[in-house]
């Protein structure tokens, strides 16, 4: 998500990279380009205007830091503005003092309310709550049926009007919602999520209906569900719903597309309510709290190590991670380890998303379409090897190669490609480990040492060896996510496209 905007910014900043100083004309030029970039990302016009004005004050009016070059100064200022516009930290959901906690979902048709209601129920469940879903969309044919199907997948009960009333499309959603709170008390459910019908912000009658639903259930939280692909109208819609319902936050959906997500930037600024959750895929667990501070880094191509690490922590066992890291850095890295790695990575979610979160990944890699079946092929090849072959790939001769190819349903060339590339990687890792080990291995003790150096650019070249590699300091890398300024390249990936990557 946000690649389009991210790429635009990258283009703007790269032009500044070699500049000594910025005069007023340069600043104007940069601001003009930023304005266009934001408008093309569907950020609301008025928001763009104030954003650019604040940025101008920042860039022109103040004594600029001498330690940073112009590109870094601009990145830093834009980052600060983005964080300010998106609004600080993630929203904290605090349950109602007297259960049940009632959550009201509202929005335009097709923004994804029903699916999002189910995802939110799933989220509450993962927080140890007992949600009840309420089908108060009695308008769209089969909306309640959709909610029931989704709810069954996450094992959450649904309350709605009787089936014949739902089928007749004449039921009263206000009565359903009011009844649901009673039902929740009876069943001992502590969270009630009310899915309402989609409605246009200008439809006075339906807006009045949703107001009556709100009055009937006095929601603890009222969320507006907004499609990330919404254009300039996002703000008008949000304002209309806010005036009617007093929103507590916004849930942004369909962020897994290539929408520039301007709506995310606009709504907070205009309505003063934050993005509370974001939905990033079609699966029911592709849904989480929204972290505006992290998003700013992502928009500016600085990656999002924090989210990455959180995901990793859910998947990796601690010892396992340490073992893997050590093996990697010491070069005792076999195909078996690689296989295990790959499986862990896949459990963390779609590879595409993971790559996008890594700082300094070249654009070509972030955008590369990595499909599961490509990865499956690699897995199949490794699984067709004997343990000895996995430990010592050099054993693989022509006859073994054809056996492996037959076993995995691939071509012998692919097997040798994999083996060659793997030994490359092994070599690379060894270098990488050898250089980083002094600082990286003992961990905490040397943490401060690493941090002092973080002011300088990310990659320094060692100057020795046929393929000099930049050092990577992971402490610094994590810091970089918070303190903007310059990209960090992974060893071996430079800024160039690896061969064969289109």
């Amino acid at each position: 998500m946000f690649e389009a905007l991210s790429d635009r910014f990258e283009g703007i900043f790269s032009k500044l990279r070699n500049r000594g100083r910025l005069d007023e004309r340069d600043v104007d030029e940069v601001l003009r380009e930023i304005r266009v970039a934001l408008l093309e990302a569907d950020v609301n016009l008025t928001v763009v205007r104030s954003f650019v004005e604040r940025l101008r004050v920042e860039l022109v009016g103040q004594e600029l830091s001498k330690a940073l070059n112009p590109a870094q100064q601009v990145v830093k200022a834009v980052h600060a503005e983005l964080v300010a516009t998106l609004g600080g930290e993630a929203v904290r959901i605090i349950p109602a003092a007297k259960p049940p906690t009632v959550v009201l979902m509202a929005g335009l048709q097709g923004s994804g309310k029903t699916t999002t209601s189910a995802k939110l129920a799933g989220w509450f469940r993962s927080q140890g709550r007992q949600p009840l879903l309420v089908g108060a969309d009695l308008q769209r044919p089969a909306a309640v049926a959709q909610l029931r199907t989704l709810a069954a997948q996450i094992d959450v009960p649904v309350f709605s009007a009787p089936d014949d009333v739902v089928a007749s499309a004449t039921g009263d959603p206000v009565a359903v919602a009011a009844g649901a709170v009673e039902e929740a008390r009876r069943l001992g459910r502590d969270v009630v999520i009310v899915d309402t019908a989609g409605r246009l912000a200008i439809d006075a009658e339906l807006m009045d209906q949703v107001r009556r639903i709100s009055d009937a259930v006095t929601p603890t939280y009222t969320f507006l569900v907004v499609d990330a692909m919404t254009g300039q109208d996002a703000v008008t819609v949000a304002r209309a719903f806010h005036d009617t319902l007093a929103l507590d936050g916004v849930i942004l959906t369909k962020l897994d597309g290539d929408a520039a997500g301007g709506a995310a930037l606009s709504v907070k600024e205009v309505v003063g309510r934050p993005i509370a959750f974001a939905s990033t895929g079609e699966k029911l667990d592709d849904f989480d709290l929204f972290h505006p501070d992290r998003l700013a880094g992502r928009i500016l191509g600085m990656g999002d190590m924090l989210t990455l690490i959180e995901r990793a922590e859910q998947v990796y066992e601690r010892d396992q991670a340490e073992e893997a890291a050590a093996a990697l850095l010491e070069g005792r890295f076999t195909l078996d380890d690689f296989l295990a790695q790959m499986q862990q990575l896949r459990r963390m979610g779609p590879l595409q998303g993971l790559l996008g979160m890594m700082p300094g990944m070249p654009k070509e890699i972030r955008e590369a379409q990595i499909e599961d079946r490509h990865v499956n092929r690699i897995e199949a090849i490794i699984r067709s090897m004997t343990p000895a072959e996995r430990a010592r790939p050099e054993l693989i001769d022509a006859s073994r190669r054809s056996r492996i190819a037959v076993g995995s349903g691939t071509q012998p060339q692919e097997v040798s490609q994999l083996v060659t590339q793997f030994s490359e990687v092994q070599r690379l890792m060894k270098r990488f480990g050898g250089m980083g080990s002094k600082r990286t291995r003992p961990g905490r003790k040397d943490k401060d040492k690493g941090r002092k150096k973080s002011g300088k650019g990310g990659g320094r070249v060692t100057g020795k060896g046929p393929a000099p590699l930049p050092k990577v300091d992971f402490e610094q890398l994590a810091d970089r996510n918070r303190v903007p300024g310059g990209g960090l390249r992974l060893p071996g990936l430079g800024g160039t496209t690896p061969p064969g990557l289109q």
Partner: protein
Amino acid sequence: MELAVLVLILALAGALVAVALVFLRHRSRTAAPRLGTADRSDRVARAATTVLEEPVVEETPVVEETPAVVEAPPPVRPSFVDRLTRAREAIAGPFRAVLARGALDAGTWDDLEDALIGADVGVELTGELLEELRGVARERRIEDPAVLIAALKELVVARLGGRDRSLRHDADATNVWLFVGVNGVGKTTTVGKVGHRERAGGQSVVMAAGDTFRAAAAEQLATWAERAGCDFVRGAEGGDPSSVVFDAVQRAAARGSDLVLADTAGRLHTKSNLMDELAKVRRVADRDPGRVTECLLVLDAVTGQNGLVQAEQFTAATALTGVVLTKLDGSAKGGIVLAIEHRLGIPVKLVGLGEGVEDLVPFEPVEFADALFG
């Protein structure tokens, strides 16, 4: 993607994650249990089916018959301007600022730019339109803002002119109209309304529930088919949409219906496997006796600049023949279709102006421009 490169990427990614994790191990472990992953594999399974070309009839489809009783009320065509008045009043006309100035000055051009960008026309096309307008204003020595806006309207109408906006219907084949688009734009509803319209026009119509992914999508279309008195074909949930469409074509041919309206699952244009699946649906639908005579992108009128990317991707996969702009009554904007017609030459054919069945109407450039600049 070359295998070798993939290995490199995966190894590096793994290394990065593992090492970073070791360093940040002091961070408190948030042990929130993940949700069940039962539904993880479904999309992968769908991807797999896209590779297969030939086995079309895998699941035996349930063919539901609905009595074809329909008393067709002559459709009264609502006008854009009537329908959009509500929306236009809710959103204070940005062009009023231009008119309020009384005379042309530098601010006029800024206001016009704001108005066009605010209508999602896009930065680039807005620039082009205003450049053209400046030329016209100089040439005709326009000084009255009202005249200037009228001239802008003319430019927009001229850009939208000269396109065939009718829905193609061949007499010698089983016509298939395919409806594609991202999630939540109103594909199923559009299929329902078009079915209603064509049925009222005397056609015998088969609706194909090609959205086998979204929960209860088939039920939603079934309701529409019943209301409109159309035949209805569905497959198993999670089944292959191509087979549903194929069966619908077979059924239509067997019963002498000459129009199949095929719904498809909403999909983001960035998911290449799902776009491949869609391309396959189109290929299968195009086999004799079927012929895809319309492939329509359904687009929500509030969509911003992403609409252009959507149109590009969908036309690459399925060769679009037109656009259906839905929910225009909510925003009175939809300026992105200007960019789509301009850049890609794909005409807007139908417009949704309200929730009623009769509210889906043919696109009229003049009325659209009137509404846009109201």
